[in-house]
């Protein structure tokens, strides 16, 4: 019972801590990674970020909420991909399910790149504890939003964050253009 009271105490403290550090915890640098896509081509996060913001989504074929979330994210991808937004769906399936990934991805009509995290090194580097887990990274390589689990409507928050990022990058591009023309 002492443990129980102690754990409850910890949770109350976490409530307080989470509200106080929420904004500070953002903008930590995203760990870079290299992984192979379904064609066997190596993809590096650093290179992909040169094109715009990237959403890294950890998922597996057997995870119902992950598949549901990626279905919703496909719609987001369709809308913003041309503006520079990219999704990297990091598959954490074991050898048992990995053969089914390609046919499932194509069968469900997903267009974004899917990477296989064979030894779960990316999963561990991002300190992921459960899937689905999403990480939104700005072009500078900073984590601007993270979220674990999926509830219907979560994709709306991601949409807003992406729009903010895309607006910011187009504004900074315009500013740079303006500075150049002034010179």
């Amino acid at each position, binding site marked *: 019972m002492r443990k129980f009271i102690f754990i409850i105490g910890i949770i109350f403290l976490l409530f307080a801590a989470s509200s106080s550090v929420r904004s500070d915890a953002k903008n930590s640098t995203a760990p870079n990674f290299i992984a192979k896509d379904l064609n066997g081509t190596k993809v590096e996060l650093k290179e992909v970020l040169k094109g715009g913001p990237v959403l890294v989504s950890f998922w597996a074929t057997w995870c119902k909420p992950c598949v549901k979330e990626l279905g919703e994210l496909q719609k987001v991808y369709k809308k913003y991909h041309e503006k520079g937004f990219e999704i990297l769906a990091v598959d954490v399936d074991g050898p048992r399910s990995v053969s089914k990934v390609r046919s499932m991805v194509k*069968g469900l009509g997903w267009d974004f790149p899917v990477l296989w995290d064979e030894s779960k090194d990316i999963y561990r580097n991002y300190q992921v504890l459960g899937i689905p887990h999403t990480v939104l990274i700005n072009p500078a390589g900073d984590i601007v939003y993270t979220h674990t689990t999926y509830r219907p409507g979560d994709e709306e928050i991601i949409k807003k964050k992406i729009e903010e990022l895309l607006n910011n990058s187009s504004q900074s591009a315009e500013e740079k253009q303006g500075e150049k023309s002034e010179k």
Partner: protein
Amino acid sequence: MRNRPFFVFPELPEFPLFAFFLLLLFSFFPFPFSVSLFAQDFKFTASNQLEYDLNSGDNKDIFHDWFDFAGTYDLYQAGIRYEAHQPDDYGNTFQEFSYRYFQVTTKAFQLIAGNYYAMFGRGLILRSYENRDLRFDNNLDGIKGSLNSVRFDLTVLAGSPRSGYLRINDPLQGADGKMVVSKWLTLGGSFLRTDITDFGLVRLFGGNASFVFPHLDLYAEYARKDNPSGENIEKDGDGVYLSSSFYQTGFGLTFEYKDYKRLDFTNGTLVYNNPPALTKEHAYTLLNRHAYVLNLYDEKGIQAQAVWTPKEKLSLLANYSYTTDHKNRMIFSEIYEEAEYDYKNIATLKGGFSYLKNRQETGLPSYLAPVFDLTYYLSEKNSLAFSFEHLWTSKYDGNLTYYEQIISLGFAHSPNYSLTLTDERTTEWKTRAWSGKKNWLILSLDLALGENHNLTLSLGSRRAGKVCSGGICTDRPALDGGEIKLLSRF
């Protein structure tokens, strides 16, 4: 096999305060703070997973905690994991630094000293991995080096594996290489050896080929196990795994074949290899409870799966699995169909049906299971969810029948919380002497505390049962009281 612990605390305190101390510390001091203490190039990440069950009947509690910490500077990374279980799966108190490493990583090269995970091919020869739901972790402790280029990958390793909560003293040595021969062909090869105390030298070697054509992927792997010391020569064995995937937009078809004969590469209770089991991995609780347990000594089989999206809002899935032994006696079979439909963005309906036979279980049972999920969107952020699972069991040629059923009802508010009430009942008590519960009811509240903490509080009772993944299963104890799960990233 000889076992030794990693590192044991000199005096075990009654309660692992250390885990809570770390949790608290990092909750209040997130990493931008830590970074500012040092040069900008230092980066730190950490996470904590806490699980606590308190059973009201006998006042017994179960506590599990994993705390991971990693620091990166330029090309260098070091990390450590503290793990505590009171009790562990064997009823003992366990706490130690179970995982620590130092690694150097460049684009072309990686060297790890300490603990690491590794997989060769599709796991026919080696699969070292962690699955906390199964309380499974067979990480290696030693050294691993990898060379990577556009056309060539090579991994060389040596290390002692973890088995349960102990370290095995018989080290493994191995190598795995891949070469991109052309745009459509990649070839690979693996080798692994160990000298097992009181048994002798055992080695595995194999090769694999991967073909990628437009709309078609093929993969083939062969592995052979032998025992050159001459002892237990009947233990020699081999295994084959083949897969093909055909796909085009809106349709995908996968066909797989396995044939494993005395391929089990073991040391005591630890199995080093874990190839594809070729059975559907279910997310539904009742279907997962009767999953097939991989038998590398004697099995062969097939699995076919098709996914089709005929309309934007409709998706269909069909799966067939069939496994026999080498005398062609059926061990496991399953037919599973599933359809999902989005109705005008108001609701999502999902219905499935499974018919499976698992001859590994007593009474040679057959199972018939309809499953159904409904999500109704009340607004952009609020939704209701209803889930139904019914499993009808027939044993001893239909002489013994009963059912199990799970119904759950939930409300979710994105992104902050969800509340779910789950009822499970069974009629199994009518078929045999029964002293326990006949139905179980549990209320769970899942809360997102900011972006970095997820808390689940459950109150009520939950039935004991098998949890399976990748052909490996473990028994989870029943709950009758309260449960706390806290996932934190810092």
